[in-house]
């Protein structure tokens, strides 16, 4: 956990042997980080019934970048992530307030279809959740739902998606076998392949590596870096090193106690370039968190 802790957070000039830091230096130049905005979030909040899980979030998510959400448990990271592709719609009592625009369109506008939103904004979940179907049918599921029935087209999509997820060579001879027979790391890459098979613009990842070993994690991180050129990625992670390793921008969330009703509620503390968050955060709470002093 504590490569990040070795960074002197108030020192603007990168120095020191931390692996994290070295990686920051390999990053694309800062000028390249000003890509167009995908999501414009204004004062968003999410409640489950009378419980407000996260409030007052305002941020802009940029295309072809990896944005990481970090913060302690129960700070609303995942809740916020699920608001981006309307996954809260299927939870009774869940409500999203404020405004989340996707390319200028209000995601929660009256004539916006949640299924269309989710087709463009895919999601990879914390626990690998392949369908109890064959590897092939898992990948082909999304394209079929979206109207691709031609066998040759499906074959091509399956191969392309599995290649993109660096899984093709491992599974090409057992496409007809159940996806449930794969290892956890393979299953999670299968889920990524399944997500990109429908050619979404954005891929939301909810702690995609928390159930995986370090080798599988490294593979998925490598995959994320490759996918960044074609997709916009938002990732929730508990692993600060992971955020530092893979992301371009980082948002730090924490839980605040609401004085009016004594309930804990997630808030966005700071959102900036990852290099800045991990070297020179503006908020003391961020600094405390990334240096391991709390959370």
């Amino acid at each position, binding site marked *: 956990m504590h490569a990040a802790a070795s960074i002197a957070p108030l020192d603007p000039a990168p120095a020191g042997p931390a692996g994290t830091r070295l990686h920051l230096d390999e990053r694309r130049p800062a000028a390249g980080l000003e890509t167009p905005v995908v999501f414009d979030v204004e004062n968003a909040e999410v409640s489950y019934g009378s419980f407000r899980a996260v409030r007052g979030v305002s941020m802009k998510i940029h295309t072809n970048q990896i944005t990481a959400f970090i913060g302690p448990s129960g700070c609303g990271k995942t809740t916020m992530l699920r608001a981006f592709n309307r996954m809260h719609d*299927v939870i009774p009592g869940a409500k999203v307030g404020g405004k989340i625009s996707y390319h200028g369109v209000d995601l929660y506008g009256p004539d916006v279809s949640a299924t269309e939103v989710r087709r*463009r904004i895919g999601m990879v979940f914390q626990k690998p*959740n*392949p*369908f109890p179907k064959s590897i092939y049918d898992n990948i082909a599921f*999304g394209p079929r739902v979206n109207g691709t029935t031609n066998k040759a087209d499906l074959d091509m999509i399956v191969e392309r998606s599995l290649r993109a997820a660096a899984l093709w060579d491992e599974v090409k001879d057992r496409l*007809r*076998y159940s996806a449930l027979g794969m290892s956890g790391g393979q299953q999670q890459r299968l889920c990524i392949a399944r997500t990109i098979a*429908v050619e979404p613009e954005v891929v939301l990842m909810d702690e995609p590596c928390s159930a995986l070993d370090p080798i599988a994690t490294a593979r998925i991180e490598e995959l994320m870096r490759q996918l960044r050129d074609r997709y916009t990625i938002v990732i929730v992670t508990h692993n600060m090193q992971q955020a530092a390793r893979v992301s371009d921008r980082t948002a730090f969330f924490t839980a605040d106690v609401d004085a009016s009703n004594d309930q804990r509620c997630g808030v966005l503390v700071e959102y900036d370039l990852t290099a800045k968050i991990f070297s020179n955060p503006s908020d003391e709470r961020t600094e405390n968190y990334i240096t391991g002093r709390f959370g």
Partner: protein
Amino acid sequence: MSAPGPLDLHGLRAQPSWRAAKSHLATAAMILAVVAIAIPLLAVVWSVVTRGIGVVTDAFPEFFTAEIPVVSRRKGPGMGPAILGTLLVTGGATLIAVPLGVLGAIYLHEYGQTSRFARLVRFMTTVMTGVPSIVMGLFVYLTWTLRFGYSAFGGALALACLMLPVVIGSTEQMLRLVPATLREAAYALGTSKSRTILTVVLPAALPGIVSGSLLAIARAAGETAPLLFAIGAATAYNPNLFAEANTALSVQIFGNATSSFVAAQDRAWGAALTLMLLAFVVTFIARKLTARFALER
């Protein structure tokens, strides 16, 4: 903190203890329970097989094909019309109750959820499971048979009423067991709710739904009381589902077993064995069919 002393390996040895005794007691109680369940079950199978096998093999395969003797004291086969009748009545009931029950359960679990209407339906379903089968027979007699006369279809209606709550209940249980993560995976790919239910939820729940339905079918196939009212009596083949009196194995067992003639009682045992075999074959086929959906790991 002081350094730990040498490991007390002596303490690793199993000691006679109350905890171990409780474990043995619980194991013994479970074995006893299994035996207590198995004895009556095996006794039933044993008596049906030993008394029925001779009747069936003495006239094989005529016992399964010949018509039922009109004069019941006459010795000899067979049960053909009753086998056909059971297949017609139970098959008809299955065709009515399983689709309705599965659709109803999908509504309750996926759409109605905790709404007032869904809760009312769920409550009525539970009540329906407690209704004696003869009441279902009377119900069908009054609403259907009095108007349209005896037919296998009337029996199918009565059995469907009995099966429906079982199918609804077991299917809803199975739908509840489908992990929410699977639904989320489908939703996250831009799949509509109906499509998610059809292509992800139902296939995942299918083995359980089949098991529940088979149980309901097997139960219904052995029902006698409602059929007495609804299908009347016949000794000849009646392949028409919708007209004329019919018969069924369960009805034949009841009629022949209560007869005072040995020949009829023998036929009752034969019919009982036939019904058991039929249930076995249907279960076997259904299992084979569902197994085809399962994938190799």
